[in-house]
């Protein structure tokens, strides 16, 4: 079925089609229409799940952890401040190995209040043990939500589906909505296997663990995060097999012969596709690398795309105060294993914070600045900012 859906509705369809059994969420702009749509689906009987109203995002995630440990498919959604409030329970969800799926609508951090797009909220959660998948369009949002459950459940690791505030959450696109039966075929009912709360056999979960075992439990998370790289790829291939749509974890676009590449995530990637096409028309050897997965960080694929290139411009709609853009940091640490000859120069740009537009013009300026400067410097890396 084809429908015109906003990104938030696409998330809700994804969760509902996945046969989610428990939704616990707290409303926050611009996430609200996700859980409103789900609440309507539940009220109308379109979705057969329990909807738990809670008093905060901390409680939402707590309820999700409890539900997931109870052995049911569990979903929540939030953004910005809500995700910050969840932070403690995000660690817990991963530590307790609960395959909760969370849709995060990227929203800027307060103060000052700002409800527009900015990736700092989700990127701030990188040490929590959550798999993070960034989406470029609404179809990818819906499809990734479905895939997220499969990835999470295979690995027993919580998974975050991330979409830009307003650029996706409130913008409508024609979307192919898969049949429920087809989704069920791709994603069967969740089997929690041995970890679940069973009233007939009460056990303590996550109780005090001494130093003799804590490290092993943490190692297992790392081991499974490494394993996640192939699991994510398999699930995406499996999805492509079922539905004919493929979203690589790292995608090169007009990248093969490019000398200067722009690295983008989220909706900036879709703008960058146009920018690169325009630059090509101007005779430039420009290319794009879109990264979908942030955790686990797909180092090998990135190296595959960037090895031997001259220059890389990383667009970060986020930043780590006192350091640089977060994607750029990650990229540098991956590329440092290359030899000097193979390693491109990495130019880290900060752009589009708090919802400021990243336009084709912006991206072209970034391209030419990268092309023309001999080395990355500290000047003029905040794109379009009024330095004061």
């Amino acid at each position, binding site marked *: 079925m084809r429908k015109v859906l906003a990104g938030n509705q696409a998330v809700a369809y994804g969760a509902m089609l996945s046969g989610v059994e428990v939704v616990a969420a707290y409303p926050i702009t611009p996430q609200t229409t996700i859980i409103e749509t789900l609440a309507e689906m539940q009220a109308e009987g379109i979705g057969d799940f329990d909807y738990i109203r809670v008093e905060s995002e901390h409680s939402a995630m707590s309820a999700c952890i409890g539900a997931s440990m109870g052995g049911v498919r569990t979903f929540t959604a939030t953004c910005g401040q809500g995700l910050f409030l969840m932070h403690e329970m995000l660690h817990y969800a991963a*530590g*307790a*190995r609960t395959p909760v799926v969370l849709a995060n609508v990227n929203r800027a951090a307060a103060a000052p209040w700002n409800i527009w797009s900015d990736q700092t909220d989700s990127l701030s959660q990188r040490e929590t043990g959550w798999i993070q998948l960034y989406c470029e369009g609404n179809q990818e949002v819906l499809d990734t939500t479905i895939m997220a459950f499969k990835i999470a459940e295979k690995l*027993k690791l919580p998974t975050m589906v991330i979409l830009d505030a307003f650029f996706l959450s409130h913008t409508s696109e024609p979307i192919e909505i898969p049949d429920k039966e087809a989704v069920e075929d791709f994603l069967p009912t969740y089997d929690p296997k*041995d*970890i679940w709360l069973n*009233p007939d*056999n*009460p*056990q*303590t*979960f*996550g*109780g005090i*663990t001494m130093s003799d*075992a804590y490290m*092993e*439990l943490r190692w*297992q998370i790392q081991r499974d995060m490494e394993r996640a790289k192939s699991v994510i790829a398999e699930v995406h291939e499996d999805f492509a097999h079922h539905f004919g749509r493929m979203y690589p974890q790292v995608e090169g676009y007009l990248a093969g012969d490019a000398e200067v590449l722009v690295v983008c995530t989220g909706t900036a990637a879709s703008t960058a596709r146009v920018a690169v096409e325009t630059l090509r028309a101007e005779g430039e050897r420009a290319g794009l690398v879109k990264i979908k997965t942030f955790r686990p960080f797909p180092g090998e694929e990135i190296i595959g795309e960037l090895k031997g290139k001259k220059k890389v411009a990383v667009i970060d709609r986020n930043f780590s105060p006192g350091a640089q853009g977060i994607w750029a940091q990650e990229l540098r640490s991956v590329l440092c294993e290359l030899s000097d000859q193979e390693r491109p120069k990495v130019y880290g740009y900060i752009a589009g914070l708090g919802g400021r537009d990243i336009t084709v013009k912006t991206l072209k300026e970034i391209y030419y600045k990268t092309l023309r400067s001999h080395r990355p410097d500290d000047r003029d890396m905040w794109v379009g900012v009024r330095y004061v």
Partner: protein
Amino acid sequence: MKHTDRQVNIPLCCISTTSSLVNKTGSWRYANPVFIHRGSPCNEQCPAGEDIAGYMYLAAQGKFEEAWRLIMKENPFPAVMGRVCYRFCESKCNRAEHDDPVSINQVERFIGDYGLAHSLEIDLTRPETNKGVAIVGAGPAGLTAAYHLRLLGYGVTVFDSNERPGGLMRYGIPAYRLPNEILDAEIGRLSNIGIDFRMGVNIGESIDWEKISREFDAVFVAIGAYQEGDPGIKGMDKKGAVNALDFLKEVNCGKYPKMGKKVAVIGGGNSAIDCARVSLRLGADVTLVYRRSQSEMPAHPEEIEMAREEGVKFIFLAGPQEIYGPADVSGIRLLKMSLGPIDDSGRRRPAPTGETVDLACQTVILAIGESLKVEDLPPSLICDKNMVKADAFGKTNTDGFFAGGDIIDIPHTVTHAIGSGRRAARAIDRFLRGKKHDEDALTPTLELADNNRLNLFYFDHRSRTKAHRVKVGERLTSFGEVCLSPSEEEAVYEAGRCFNCGLCTECGNCYIFCPDFSIMKNPDGYGYIVDLDYCKGCGICVQECPRGAMKMEFME
């Protein structure tokens, strides 16, 4: 660094190897949550002792017969009560602070009507005893005592000097408030359970107190207060000056007395309002005269309001000085009053100013209160301040004699009379079973579910159902009922507004909120139980109980 490749079997998450049930966390507890049936303020306030919170719960679920039976446990007149009770309960309703008090009276009225419409009958379940009780006075107190004693298996004979039973309910309350057929139907149910009515009997004529005392094992005296008060004014002998009770009785018997065009009613109580409104319906131009101001009137505010909207005129701060006229009344001289210091009744005492004013009228109805006619009482009873000396359960100074209704020191309302009959029946039962009279044993003690015991977050705001009143113009053309019964939908809605204070309604909050799964459905029946092996005594269940049906008990 030592490294090993040895495979160890570690679960993904730290899980206890044994069931956590071995850890009896109940040992950490310093306080126990307990389920408790608290008394709701309305129940506590009800002079008839009805379980209002209980029947509201049933009515809200449409279980009207069960609700009716619950009222009938205390009060045999739900349809009457739903019409004439001055709803003391509503003045204490916890909902008042939330939005508006529950319209308890309307729900009761619906339940009462339901009982009549479905011909619900009283079940006698107790075995018959060989003891008999005489009830003297077939008013609300006497009939209620008769009903309860009958339920307890006693033979009951009711004596009354009137032609028909009902007392003040029949002869004192106008039909626009209580139609005869409602009263007849509710009294009819009492005849059906074998109460023996001896009507038209004047004690001292065919039977005297001594004979009654000899023939019966106990006697309940509830003859009412019908001695007209002496206003101490001149001109009471003039034609056209009447006493309120006589007037109301005549009208209720269908003998519409001849009265003048202009009527003055003297008094500020409910009887005064009744007389004024009855006079209006008989076509008179009515002025009610009261010696204090409106705020001191003992009449129910709604009655005053309806009298006013029907056209009764009010003169406040004026008392009767003299009824004047040749042989017939032609007017009343009123003494103007001012309010002085507060008296024993808690109201400001009216004091004559010396100024007078004349009010032309052809009829004066005096509604200044009635008192006990002492000579009609059993001679052995001691009276104090013109009331029979009796305790809260009607026990008098004479063994085997109990008293209730308007002859003892309680407010003169039908509801209080019913309550006195019910309490006396319990005391008589104890007496007849040879047990010592014990007021404490007869008084059920419940902790009160007052407002601060409730968790109001669980209750939304909902407006109170308004009573259906007939339009003023239509009211005055007949003695038809002024207030109409609510619809079933309204009754269910209104009953649903009740917080059911102090009563477990199995809402499940305690069960849902318990972090230790220590609240469980009661396997043996209603409600929930606490698993003290694991309850840590956190008290969340008590906090989250919306209606104060739980409490924490601290351990020694």
